[in-house]
């Protein structure tokens, strides 16, 4: 072939280098899962000390493998089967690189890379952990890494070669050639894999038979980080569905979406119960169980999405051996962890007594409701699969089921989200808290009444607005109360607000973010849709605009051809907007995608989709989506809240220890 010139052959072995790096990583993972564990059981400091270097070496090996795969994609190396199946030379560079994880094999390498980064982070930043705990955590992460590396090497080797190389690749699924989807999988995986660290902490605690406040303090940052990434990942996936699929919706309760929502729900519960462990040393067994559950649901999500058991844009391959392999992995990790739990958990004595009406009580309620919602979503997601397997009857469980089954559980949770943070620990009375929330309640009531008055008789969206304002108002009331608003001078209040712990701000910001998302969801409840079939020059009036179709023309892109419509929106005879929805045809995959056109002013989205053309008539679907961007804005605010909380001084365990060392050095 043309590249095989002397002196130009060095890089030809890069896929082999990647393959060997993966095998090396698997060998390191075996050592990483055995040596530190033995060391911790025997109290052998040397064996325990092998954990951090092994984790770092594992990271380097996996990073080399990942880099080799990215290189193969970037250079469009058609001797690599994976590149041939998923890439094409005509693709823009950014999608060549993001195509690395836009397929089954590559996404599993990304998964292992994120896992290796987490293990190295536990090794690098966890110097203040007790060495036995650190060794056990790293060992558990090693076993997880080993399972996934074996999965890659035995069933999904991304470095497989083809000879003779075909002239060019088959191209990436055009739906995935998108910036949002380039970052969606890494964020989601950072979330999933982050929960593997809390899982490892839980397993290590079970082996040790000890959970204390310090354990809660070490687990919480990981839960927070994983949760923040998962929130972002889900939000970007939903945003992508909104602008790319062109169905006008943002969440379809698709099994694949549910697969990412389940660990998020369990992770949210974990995040909150870890606070109780840290502050009050209560709910310890429950928190350990949640940590196991959050990761179990992450693995289940991976299984559902990757096994091809669900059909969607995510199921890259439906090779049954892969599904069976993941199912076996799932079985080993989950059954193993739960057996360990059943064996060791009774040994952990509960401490920290509290009254039912207290901050702890509110967090128990939060956990109960979140877990109930998780259970409902899980049943709704898996029921069709089981029914098909057992009886061969095919059904689908759609949005109406999930909406009716989860909303009654979500409402008390939303009510409690404003009340809970204002309750004192141990023992509280409800009345003073409610008194401090009266104006948030007034705000919610006003939102409810105003929506009904101005937007017509839409009770559910109005109720959604009320819930959103209740949460935002509640978060503001919480901060105001902590800063002593109304009890001291304003300058004092501002000063105190600035000096509040970051975790208090984080909680308030995250809860308010949830409120913003709810406002967006409620706004979408008022969305309208208009269908028109127009000839060039004709127009239709909708939502206060005159929508004129100027024409539909052919456009050529780098790897597609498109039909693009030009819509001019006129208001009182003046041009207000020009929108250009299009349909793209990708010759490599023989597929068509819809490119919506969205004009937003942050209060409402104008959303246009070009449908089929027939005898000069173009079908156009037009939507007005009130407050749509707020759904994702709220999610970003939630993730920001998580990051704020993560930056809290008290979460950074290393800080006090470092100060202590400094003081000792000076003395």
């Amino acid at each position: 072939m043309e590249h095989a010139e002397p002196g130009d052959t060095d890089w030809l072995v890069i896929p082999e280098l990647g393959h060997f790096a993966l095998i090396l990583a698997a060998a390191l993972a075996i050592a990483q899962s055995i040596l530190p564990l033995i060391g911790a059981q025997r109290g052998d400091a040397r064996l325990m000390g092998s954990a951090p270097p092994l984790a770092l070496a594992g990271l380097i090996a996996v990073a080399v493998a990942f880099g080799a795969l990215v290189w193969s994609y970037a250079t469009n190396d058609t001797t690599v089967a994976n590149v041939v199946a998923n890439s094409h030379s005509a693709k823009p560079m950014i999608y060549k690189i993001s195509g690395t994880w836009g397929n089954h094999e590559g996404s599993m390498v990304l998964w292992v890379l994120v896992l290796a980064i987490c293990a190295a982070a536990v090794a690098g930043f966890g110097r203040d952990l007790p060495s036995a705990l650190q060794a056990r955590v790293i060992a558990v992460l090693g076993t997880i890494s080993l399972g996934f590396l074996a999965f890659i090497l035995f069933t999904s080797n991304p470095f497989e070669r083809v000879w003779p190389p075909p002239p060019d690749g088959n191209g990436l699924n055009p739906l995935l050639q998108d910036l949002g989807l380039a970052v969606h999988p890494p964020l989601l995986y950072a979330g999933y894999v982050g929960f593997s660290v809390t899982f490892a902490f839980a397993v290590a605690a079970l082996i040790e038979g000890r959970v204390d406040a310090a354990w809660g303090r070490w687990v919480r940052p990981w839960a927070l980080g994983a949760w923040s990434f998962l929130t972002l990942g889900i939000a970007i996936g939903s945003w992508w569905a909104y602008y790319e699929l062109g169905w006008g919706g943002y969440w379809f309760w698709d099994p694949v979406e549910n697969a990412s929502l389940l660990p998020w729900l369990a992770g949210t519960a974990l995040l909150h119960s870890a606070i109780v462990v840290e502050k009050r040393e209560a709910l310890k067994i429950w928190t350990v169980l949640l940590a196991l559950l959050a990761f179990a649901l992450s693995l289940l999500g991976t299984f559902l999405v990757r096994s091809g058991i669900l059909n969607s844009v995510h199921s890259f391959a439906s090779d049954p051996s892969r599904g069976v392999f993941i199912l076996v992995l799932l079985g080993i990790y989950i059954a193993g962890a739960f057996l360990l739990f059943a064996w060791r958990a009774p040994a952990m004595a509960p401490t920290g007594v509290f009254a039912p009406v207290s901050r702890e009580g509110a967090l128990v309620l939060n956990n109960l409701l979140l877990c109930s919602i998780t259970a409902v979503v899980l049943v709704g997601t898996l029921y069709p699969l089981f029914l098909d397997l057992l009886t061969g009857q095919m059904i689908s469980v759609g949005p109406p089921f999930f909406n009716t089954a989860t909303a009654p559980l979500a409402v008390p949770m939303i009510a409690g989200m404003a009340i809970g943070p204002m309750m004192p620990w141990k023992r509280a009375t409800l009345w003073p808290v409610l008194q401090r929330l009266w104006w948030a309640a007034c705000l919610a009531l006003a939102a409810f009444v105003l929506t009904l008055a101005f937007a017509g008789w839409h009770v559910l969206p109005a109720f959604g607005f009320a819930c959103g304002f209740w949460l935002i108002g509640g978060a503001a009331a919480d901060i105001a109360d902590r800063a002593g608003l109304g009890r001291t001078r304003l300058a004092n209040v501002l000063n105190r607000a600035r000096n509040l712990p970051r975790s208090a701000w984080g909680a308030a910001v995250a809860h308010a973010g949830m409120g913003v998302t709810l406002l967006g969801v409620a706004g979408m409840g008022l969305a309208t849709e208009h269908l028109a079939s127009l000839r060039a020059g004709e127009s239709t009036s909708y939502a206060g605009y005159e929508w004129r179709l100027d024409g539909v023309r052919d456009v050529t892109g780098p790897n597609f051809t498109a039909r693009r419509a030009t819509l001019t929106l006129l208001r009182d005879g003046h041009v207000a907007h020009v929108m250009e929805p299009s349909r793209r045809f990708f010759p490599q995959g023989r597929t068509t995608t819809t490119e919506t056109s969205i004009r937003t002013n942050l209060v409402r989205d104008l959303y246009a989709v070009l449908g089929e053309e027939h005898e000069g008539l173009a079908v156009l679907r037009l939507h007005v989506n009130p407050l749509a961007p707020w759904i994702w804005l709220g999610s970003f605010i939630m993730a920001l809240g998580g990051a704020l909380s993560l930056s809290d001084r008290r979460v950074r365990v290393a800080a006090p220890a470092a100060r202590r060392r400094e003081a000792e050095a000076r003395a």
Partner: protein
Amino acid sequence: MNRKKRRLYILLLCAIGIGSATALTLTAFQDNLVFFLAPSDIAREAPPPGRAFRLGGLVEAGSVERGGATVRFRVTDGAHTISVTFSGVLPDLFREGQGVVAQGVMGPDGTFAAREVLARHDETYMPPEVAAALRRSGHWNPSQGAAPPAATWNTLSPATRTGS
């Protein structure tokens, strides 16, 4: 508040939580399960009127009629056909001879009013429900190899199949 009493409270709360989740799931299941039916299933036993279900099969060649934004077509599983009407933007890969899944209700005149025609992303893709329905109608036996291309699944003669 002693430990025993607290444990009782927590257990009680859990029971309430599990109970309400189960009750909600069951009631929601009762009204919202969407069954998948092939044209042969409907010919055998008509679904209750007004109940939403999913209809799957192949778009019969030559059956697609467009009138403005409303589309009429017939769905077949080789043995029976059902007429479908749909107002809206059809998914990108809606073609005659292709597998299709539509959700909607049966009208009084025996036509299926689709509220949603589900999108497929890939030309060679056959929805698994449709594949199973075709197998049941006796038009394809998986033990005899892979499914034939969707365009050959047809109750009409191949000669009419030119437009797609």
